[in-house]
């Protein structure tokens, strides 16, 4: 290329370009600017609305405001279950550019494994993209600081303030309260949970499950302005969360405490209820579990511990253990025999047993001549063998069914079982065999195929003592629940419910007097309480079927179950208690358990009647505002001194 300068600049000086060419350039420029202007028009005028929406979607994020769950109180307004503030970490999938690259850092910072995160992501695969995924609950201040410090690198991490459940410690009342947890995939497919989202916390068992709709409240949301890193730079409007409803349970903390204490170290269940109304005063199942462990993500070791425990801690044995009732069934037998006018004049010679259909059925003692009044306190098997033989299985089954056996009671707790009451129809249906007359003999002493739950026994025997009025057991006062919700719960937890069975006054008096005799001169005499009209019936139920009758208690897992059903006072009792002590041996061993509970109850009532101060009763709760209530204190404070756990000084002195 030629770079040497020309000598003369002047040579072409006079020359000019044709004006047309410059005009052409002007037109080209004008055209370009018009095209650009049209491009601007297309975006800013024609497309303004949709782009504005996109810009808003860019910067506005909906953050859920979780409603605090309703708290639970005992019948006197004492706090049972509270909430405490806690922080959870969520993952915003929309904010993620390359999640897989971030995972190791997230896992490290939150002290979880990459596999765990993958598992969580899989669970939420079907959820809409904008929905935050819970990565870890109840994170430590350390982990919170990690999230704050990595706002720019990990814009996808978001924290959320939540209210978390705080349950009484050591599994106190765990089975009746239940626990909450993240909703499972199976549950989401059920119609009951149609309006629930993955990640929602729901009641999984106990009152928490039954009354979930009331307790959960309505979540709100908050619109926040974020920048491209997901950092909150401003706030817009919000929808307030509606707190869940506080519920008052029928539980009496003092009775519950006595029951927990009496069952210490034992396996089994206790249920105490008020037969007038069906209100459950105490419900204990042992072994128990710690629902606080379920409130946050369960640790694997604790879950394994629960799963491998042969005594099934999660089972609420008060409503889910179906076992032979043993001699407690003799009350039902007596009721049937007396109502059939078969037992009144029956006199049976007990010489340590009797033979029926070619088999010898043993009695634990030689009672001599026995009538029904003595057969109950002495628990004479020979008498009831004879009575059962006289009544026949279908008559027994009819009366037992009337009293609610082989049906659910309709208690407001999930997963109640029915138990079994054999009959000819039952045997044909289940075994396609006819009933052999000889089979009825062991049914007479509550063995054979008879299986009952503690709650059935408490309701039935409490009902007999109340002149035949049976009530639906319940844990929440019906007036605490809106009528339509109550109806729905009765429908869901259908069962025997409220009913009245015929019971002649004479028979009523006879049975209740005989039960009172049990604790004075009968099988439960050691549990006699001076000054308390305490009535009851023992039961010693074989776990392994021996040929017939009670010849030995067995040992270990073969040791007999000790039953006791007690009440006070004997007629129209204020409290009925059923005690199941698994492998506890003689039923008389369970009598002191019931005695302690009834003693606690009666003592309390008397102190109240005599105007003796028994416990600090907090003022009724002020109605909660719609906004989340401020936490009532650090959780450790509750853990350190939970009201329910401390026996009152006045009671301890008793």
């Amino acid at each position, binding site marked *: *290329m*030629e*770079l*040497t*300068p*020309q000598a003369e*600049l002047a*040579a*072409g*000086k*006079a*020359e*000019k*370009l044709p*004006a047309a*060419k*410059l005009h*052409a*350039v*002007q037109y*080209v*420029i*004008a055209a*370009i*600017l018009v*095209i*650009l*202007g049209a*491009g*601007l*028009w*297309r*975006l*800013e*005028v024609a*497309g*303004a609305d*949709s*782009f*504005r929406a*996109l*810009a*808003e979607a*860019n*910067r506005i994020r909906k953050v859920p405001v979780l409603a605090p769950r309703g708290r639970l109180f005992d019948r006197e307004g004492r706090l049972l279950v509270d909430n405490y503030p806690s922080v959870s970490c969520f993952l915003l999938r929309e904010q993620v*550019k390359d999640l897989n690259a971030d995972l190791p850092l997230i896992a490290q910072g939150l002290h979880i494994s990459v596999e765990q995160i993958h598992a969580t992501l899989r669970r939420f695969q079907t959820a809409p993209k904008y929905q935050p995924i819970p990565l870890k609950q109840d994170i430590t201040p350390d982990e919170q600081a990690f999230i704050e410090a990595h706002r720019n690198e990990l814009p996808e991490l978001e924290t959320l303030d939540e209210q978390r459940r705080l349950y009484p410690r050591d599994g106190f009342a765990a089975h009746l309260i239940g626990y909450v947890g993240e909703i499972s995939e199976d549950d989401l497919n059920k119609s009951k949970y149609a309006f629930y989202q993955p990640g929602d916390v729901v009641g999984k068992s106990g009152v928490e499950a039954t009354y979930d709709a009331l307790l959960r409240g309505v979540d709100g949301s908050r619109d926040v*302005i*974020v*920048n*491209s*890193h997901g950092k909150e*730079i401003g706030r817009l409007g919000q929808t307030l969360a509606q707190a869940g409803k506080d519920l008052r349970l029928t539980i009496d903390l003092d009775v519950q405490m006595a029951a927990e204490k009496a069952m210490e170290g034992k396996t089994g269940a206790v249920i105490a209820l008020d037969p007038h109304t069906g209100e459950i005063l105490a419900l204990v199942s042992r072994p128990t579990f710690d629902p606080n462990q379920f409130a946050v993500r369960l640790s694997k070791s604790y879950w394994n511990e629960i799963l491998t425990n042969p005594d099934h801690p999660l089972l609420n044995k008060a409503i889910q253990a179906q076992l032979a009732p043993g001699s407690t069934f003799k009350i039902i037998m007596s009721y049937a025999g007396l109502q059939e006018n078969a037992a009144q004049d029956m006199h049976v010679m007990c010489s340590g047993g009797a033979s029926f259909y070619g088999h010898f059925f043993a009695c634990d003692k030689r009672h001599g001549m026995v009538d029904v009044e003595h057969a109950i306190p002495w628990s004479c098997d020979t008498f009831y063998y004879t009575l059962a033989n006289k009544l026949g299985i279908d008559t027994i089954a009819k009366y037992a069914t009337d009293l609610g056996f082989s049906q659910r009671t309709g208690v407001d707790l999930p997963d109640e079982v029915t138990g079994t009451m054999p009959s000819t129809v039952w045997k044909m249906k289940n075994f396609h065999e006819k009933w052999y007359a000889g089979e009825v003999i062991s049914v007479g002493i509550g063995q054979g195929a008879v299986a009952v739950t503690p709650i059935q026994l408490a309701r039935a025997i409490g009902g007999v003592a109340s002149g035949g009025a049976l009530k639906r057991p319940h844990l929440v006062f019906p007036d605490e629940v809106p009528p339509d919700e109550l109806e729905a719960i009765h429908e869901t937890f259908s069962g025997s419910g409220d009913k009245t069975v015929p019971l002649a006054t004479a028979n009523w008096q006879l049975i209740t007097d005989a039960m009172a005799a049990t604790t004075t001169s009968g099988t439960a005499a050691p549990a006699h309480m001076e000054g308390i009209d305490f009535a009851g019936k023992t039961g010693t139920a074989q776990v392994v079927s021996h040929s017939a009758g009670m010849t030995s208690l067995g040992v270990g897992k073969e040791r007999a179950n000790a039953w006791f059903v007690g009440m006070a006072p004997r007629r129209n009792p204020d409290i009925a208690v059923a005690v199941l002590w698994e492998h506890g041996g003689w039923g008389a061993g369970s009598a002191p358990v019931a005695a302690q509970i009834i003693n606690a109850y009666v003592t309390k009532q008397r102190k109240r009647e005599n105007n003796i101060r028994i416990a600090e009763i907090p003022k009724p709760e002020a109605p909660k505002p719609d906004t989340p209530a401020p936490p009532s204190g650090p959780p450790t404070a509750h853990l350190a001194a939970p009201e329910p756990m401390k026996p009152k000084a006045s009671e301890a002195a008793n």
Partner: protein
Amino acid sequence: MFRLSSYRDFDWVLLGFVGILSVISVLEIKSATLHTKFHGFDQKQIVFLVVGLLLMFLISMIDYHRLVDIIPWAYGISIFALVAVKLVGQKVLGARRWINLGGGVHFQPSEWVKLILIVAVARYFWNLGGRELNWPDIGKAFALVCVPMGLVLMQPDMGTSLTYLPVLLCGLFLGGIRFKQAAILVLIFTVLIGGAWKSGKLLKPYQKARLTSFIDPDADPRGKGYQIRQSLIAVGSGGIWGKGANKGTQTQGDFLPIPYTDFIFAAFCEEHGFVGALGVLLLYFLILMRLIQNAQTAADLPGTFIIMGVVAVIVFQIAVNIGMVVGLMPVTGIPLPLMSYGGSSILFTFLALGIVMNIRMRRFVN
């Protein structure tokens, strides 16, 4: 050659339009960097503008014929500097574009080469004396521009190298290329570029990605199409009147990429709307028309060619930058003259304007 009285002939009207645009630029840079670590860039821009103004007055004092005289030397030194950048330049963001002169001063030769090319092309076509172009003439013109262009493309800096192209095209058009020749050239380049695209050797993968994402920005909203998508949202959501100064959610929320340089027009559109954007386009139109008027009144061919070269570069940058912001052009990284933040871009523009002033001041010299 040096007459103070000629400042009466200084184009104060043009400078007025440029001044308004510069003020708009500073305000928008301030808004776009308000909540970022680049806060304060507006003040640095003012410094650049002041230095640019000084350089503009300085260069207007030197008779442009002197520049035309020495241009072969300047051209030679430019080629040498570009080679030097390739060998010893600082690598920033994967491209060698800068020479560190020490003391925090960085020198980006490719920006200045643009100015030298404008004058060199003007001199080349002036030497041809206005006769009809033959193929060797065209070939030489291509060589003149494509050697530095190739060197810059190898840095790699596709954006700046592309700005050399309008200088060549403008020169060819004004220098008298015939329609038939132009048609043949277009045909040849269409075939060549098509082949190169397919072979994949012409463009680096990221450049290719930019081009494809321009065609369908929603294909990968979090990846390559992100910049374009956010730019379109920013512009579109501005509406007719805009969201107001410092109130653009896309700009202030850091959604819009580099809103103070390449995407400054998107930020401006978001905050000042269609009306504001048309105002800026109008200012550009007035500036360009004023420049062409000066080209018409220039005393001689070199003057006309130089001014038209400046016009070509500015129009090209406006078209590519605003075209990119409104989604009509791919992302190329070409700054918007007089609006985008950046010393090199500002200084080039003001030096170019200085030469234009220079030519205007000497239009009656005869």
